[in-house]
């Protein structure tokens, strides 16, 4: 059957485009109709299509971490309901022990039927701003078991043959802080699934169920071939790398993320067995999430464009050990495991950089920082303001890191200041780039971003997940690390206190929380950087005159132009 479809590359390309287009329609629907800032402005959601076997055949531009986690979620759904799926059903799940990746990421899947025949699934994942639990926003680094982290939904029917399962809606409503927001986002996910259903059935009408299945299968195989052929072009070898988290979620302690990456023929193996045991706080990752991280790192290293299907994962094996930070077991807390994923990504890249150096960038900021403000408005109504400070990039083998761009594992957008201030009692005092924070190198790392919020309500819960204070983002091949992150609380009397990378606390009106995310690492020897590029950075006030000299050995004249002669002497003196 699949051979047949493969023989028709034209139809295959047509169907691949159609499926990608459907996934995009789904994403647009979520984006435009969602209610929480984290979804509609932060764009922390994903939309995908799967075939009847559960293989992912298309994904929209949304969070890469989600795509890699789909196969396990789908596997669990099929194991539980595989024989009972009915037209009009919609399923919901957020349980990390039933295929989820932490309680905030709610999966909504809809099986699509043509008559009585299963055609495939519309699959969405969205990061919900609050799912109940101990603190507003649900996620907190110092949660120590899953029961503190919110409502836990194993795979359940949200709609049964088109009818809402009211009991499930009632339980959800009763367990979250802002039901309208949660139900609004769920509604957006369900709507996206319906959009996909309509369009997928149009494809069925054109190609028939059987042919469409064959074409979808062929697309997955095509993806696998693309990935295998590229991995085969990489040199065989094995390399290890260890990167660290600043904290176990509760106190300052080095938490190692260790990986050994092996390239063997057309396959890659990533082994996390030597990583830290599970930690006390909420940084423990599911195995599926670590798999997603590795998939993303390998995908990002490919030079070819590859369709977003699960075929890309087949040549990749991920090894984890239960009871480690890379494979949480009951009742471990996992709500803030995002940072563990980001660090695992950095670790995999650190290993890959030794094997395929011209494909791997220096470390970026280390992942989005979360700052979650929760309190009561003057009207008595509760609010949860879920702020994402999104990242900046490490320098690549070809050029400078982007100044201010979401981590390669994420596509989170920043939340506009005017949106934040219109909707929440908060005042953003500052938002910008910080000079001299990008790791020096032949190519410079992206600059750090700073953002400061003045709290306007008393008794405000503030939960922060940041990192890279003790272990700044690494540079590669002689490039320097980026500047470390920084958290500061400024009180109304002007006194300041430095805060740790991860904490939860209570602040009051008039207090200002300042966060600076880490800068990106540099690539290559800074003394090899084109002096004109350094001068341009100085002109742009991204690098100071002092740093130009100290870090790059570039001497500038008072008018900002490069003193070639003096620069040559300076650089020669340092290299000899």
């Amino acid at each position, binding site marked *: 059957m699949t051979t047949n479809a493969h023989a028709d590359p034209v139809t295959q*390309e047509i169907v691949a485009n159609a499926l990608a287009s459907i996934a995009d329609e789904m994403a647009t629907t979520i984006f*435009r109709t969602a209610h929480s800032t984290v979804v509609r402005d932060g764009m922390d959601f994903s939309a995908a299509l799967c075939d009847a076997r559960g293989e992912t055949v298309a994904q929209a531009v949304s969070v890469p971490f989600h795509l890699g986690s789909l196969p396990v979620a789908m596997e669990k759904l099929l194991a539980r309901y595989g024989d009972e799926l009915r037209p009009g059903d919609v399923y919901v799940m957020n349980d990390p022990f039933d295929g989820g990746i932490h309680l905030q990421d709610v999966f909504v899947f809809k099986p699509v039927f043509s008559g009585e025949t299963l055609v495939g699934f519309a699959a969405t994942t969205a990061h919900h701003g609050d799912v109940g639990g101990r603190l507003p926003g649900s996620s907190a680094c110092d949660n120590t078991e899953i029961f503190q982290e919110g409502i836990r939904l194993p795979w359940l029917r949200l709609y049964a043959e088109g009818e809402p399962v009211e009991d499930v809606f009632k339980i959800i409503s009763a367990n979250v802080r802002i039901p309208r927001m949660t139900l609004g986002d769920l509604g957006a996910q369900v709507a996206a699934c319906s959009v996909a259903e309509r369009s997928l059935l149009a494809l069925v009408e054109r190609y028939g169920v059987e042919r469409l299945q064959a074409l979808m299968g062929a697309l997955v195989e095509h993806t696998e071939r*693309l990935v295998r052929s590229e991995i085969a072009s990489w040199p065989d070898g094995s390399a290890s790398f260890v990167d660290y988290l600043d904290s176990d979620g509760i106190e300052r302690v080095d938490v190692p993320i260790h990986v050994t990456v092996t390239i063997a023929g057309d396959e890659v193996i990533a082994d996390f067995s030597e990583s830290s045991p599970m930690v006390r706080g909420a940084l423990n990752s599911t195995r599926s999430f670590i798999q997603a991280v590795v998939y993303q790192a390998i995908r*990002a290293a490919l030079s070819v464009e590859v369709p977003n299907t699960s075929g890309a994962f087949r040549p990749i094996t991920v090894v984890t050990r239960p009871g480690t930070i890379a494979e949480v077991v009951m009742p471990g807390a996992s709500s803030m495991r995002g940072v563990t994923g980001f660090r695992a990504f950095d670790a995999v890249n650190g290993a890959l950089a030794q094997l395929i150096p011209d494909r791997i960038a220096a470390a970026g900021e280390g992942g989005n920082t979360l700052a979650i403000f929760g309190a009561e408005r003057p009207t008595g109504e509760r609010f949860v303001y879920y702020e994402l400070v999104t990242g900046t990039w490490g320098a690549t083998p070809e050029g400078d890191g982007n100044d201010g761009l979401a981590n390669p594992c994420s596509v989170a*957008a920043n939340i*506009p200041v005017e949106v934040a201030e219109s909707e929440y009692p908060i005042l953003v005092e500052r938002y910008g*780039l910080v000079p001299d924070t990008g790791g020096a190198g032949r190519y410079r790392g992206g600059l750090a971003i700073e953002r400061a919020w003045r709290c306007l309500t008393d008794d405000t819960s503030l939960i922060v997940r940041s990192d890279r204070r003790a272990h700044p983002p690494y540079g590669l091949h002689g490039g320097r690390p980026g500047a470390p992150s920084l958290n500061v609380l400024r009180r109304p009397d002007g006194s300041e206190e430095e805060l740790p990378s991860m904490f939860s606390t209570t602040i009051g009106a008039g207090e200002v929380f300042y966060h600076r995310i880490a800068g990106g690492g540099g690539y290559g020897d800074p003394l090899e950087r084109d002096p004109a590029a350094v001068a341009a950075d100085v002109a742009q006030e991204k690098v100071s005159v002092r740093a130009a000299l100290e870090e790059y050995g570039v001497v500038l004249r008072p008018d900002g132009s490069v003193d070639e002669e003096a620069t040559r002497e300076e650089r020669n003196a340092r290299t000899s």
Partner: protein
Amino acid sequence: MSYRLGVDIGGTFTDATLVDEATGEVCIAKVSTTPSDPSVGFLLAMERLLAEAGVAGRDLRYLAHATTVATNAIIEGKLARTAFVTTDGFRDLLEIQRQVRSALYNVHFEKPRPLVPRHRCFGVRERLGPDGSVLRELDEEHVRDVAASLRAEDVEAVAVCLLHAYVNDAHERRVGEILAEELPGVEISLSSSVAPEFREYLRASTTVINAGVQPVVLRYLESIEDRLADRGVDAELLVMQSAGGVYTATAAKRRPVYMVESGPAAGVIAAAQLGRALGQPDVISFDMGGTTAKVSLVQDGEPTVTKDFQVGSAAQAGIGGSSFSGYPVRTPVVDLVEIGAGGGSIAWIDTGGKLRVGPRSAGADPGPVCYRRGGAEPTITDANLVLGRLSPTNFLGGEIELDVEGARAAIEERCAKPLGLDVVEAARGIVEIANAAMGNALHLVSVQRGHDPRRFVLVAFGGAGPAHANALARDAEINTVLVPRSPGIFSATGLLVTDLHHEYTTTVLAPLAEVTRERLDELFAPLEDAGRRDLEREGTAPEDVSTVRQLDLRYVGQSFELTVASADPETAADLFHAEHDRAYGFSAPGEPIELVSVRVRAVGRIPKPVPKPLEAGPLPAPTGSRPVHFTEAGGYVETAVYERSALPAGARFEGPAIVEEYDSTTVVHPGFWVEVDTYGNLLLRRMV
């Protein structure tokens, strides 16, 4: 004697069309665009037409223009030396942008370069709250210090965008006044005037583009106006806006950001007007040129308009991923989906052994292989030639003879062999993949937005549109394709059939339930007054002015608005629920609605020329026949070829058939028949 002239400057060609207002007689001209100074091509096209028709410059009563000058300035980085002034603490808004990327897995992605370099971005000490209250007074001395820095930087334009200026423009206006005093001769754009809407980066980006293209557009329009004056043309120059209406050159010089999609809009307007004239107000416009295809939906004679446009986004082979790769513009823009599928789009095999088409294009130079200008990579045009759809000897009126063997060899070598297909299968594949991508675009503007394409007429134009439209219609189950006369320059005719438009808006951000009809009247009144004033100052008679009231609404908690045309809160709520249901497949009538902004479109009516009917007559004999490949016919079939100019009104014939004219070829598939209507349009209809 009075005439109307439309001039449309595109990337490759400058098209002009001249209409005799009394008779409806049309003359057209096509000259090469002159990129170094596009006004040269403008003049050349105009003079050629005037000479041909024996018309003097003073006989032109109406002169409208579509141009890519603003867009090109942005894409090519040729903006004026622009500075950006914002609230202290936020100078990096243009650097940071929204922090998202269009390429999910590309770690070599480079985000769009900020349009203003960081050292020309300044914060001034002041601060407003979200309700417009002053949290920190404007420090005027600081503004003067900034002005001194701007002077030292020798800037030509300044964009001012202060936080929350959409609710209270007092600080921005004062900053504008001080800068005007301190920097005479420098163009200043205020966000509260250009795009008074919330979300600071979107507003800032719009304002910066306005400021940055302003000196460029100013020089350009003045140069054209001078040349027109030299030739005795005293009609006022009008410019097509991105949303479809025209505005005067004077207004365009103030708000050039409104014309970034001038050219594409003209095409959609032309399709809308043609549909209205033929009693078919619901059309889908399909414009396929050398590098891209554009699809847009027109309902009830009105183009759909969006405010989520990004200028400078790279074209994509398929749908999706095109957002976040350019610079956002929050002015109304005709809502079209543009993909990298044009006659010059290149076919290639990826490393996984799959046939792909676009988005890379051979463009006009070297162009397709068959143009014999050194192109080596096969394109859609080459595939059409191999399939017999294009004539090797009658292309552009025979000006160039197309190289069939070259096209065949390129497809054989680069597509067919690696796939193990024969050359015809590969050529068919190239065309079908392109058609499917365009079909997705059509799906996106129709089905995805809640419209059933089957009740629309497909209006096909652009050099390549008529060759592909029938297949698109067949696949989307559209019953009628309309191919206007001179499809290659059809966009230019859109310039002759539009009205003067001005847009006005105020951000409100209030629960709709708390807004009374009286309050709405108060909000609309100043906008309508401004519209009337502006139009009348531009010479529109009061009786020709009309205004349309619109509300931007969303459910409380959402971030995206839908626009409904109403001035009554209750009606508006009903319309909003219905529109939400249509657009997204669901609505929530119990949920509270938020009024985000009110907008007014002021329209100054311009009389439309009456098209000249074509003489009726019997169907002439075909000019020839050749084998043309149709998949549904199982391969090549001997197909009649007609010369378009020889077809009289009322002529009818059945597909398969080919209709050739100077700048385009219409392909009629088996199962469709053709009728030439009173005005010479080809109507391709499905046979029952």
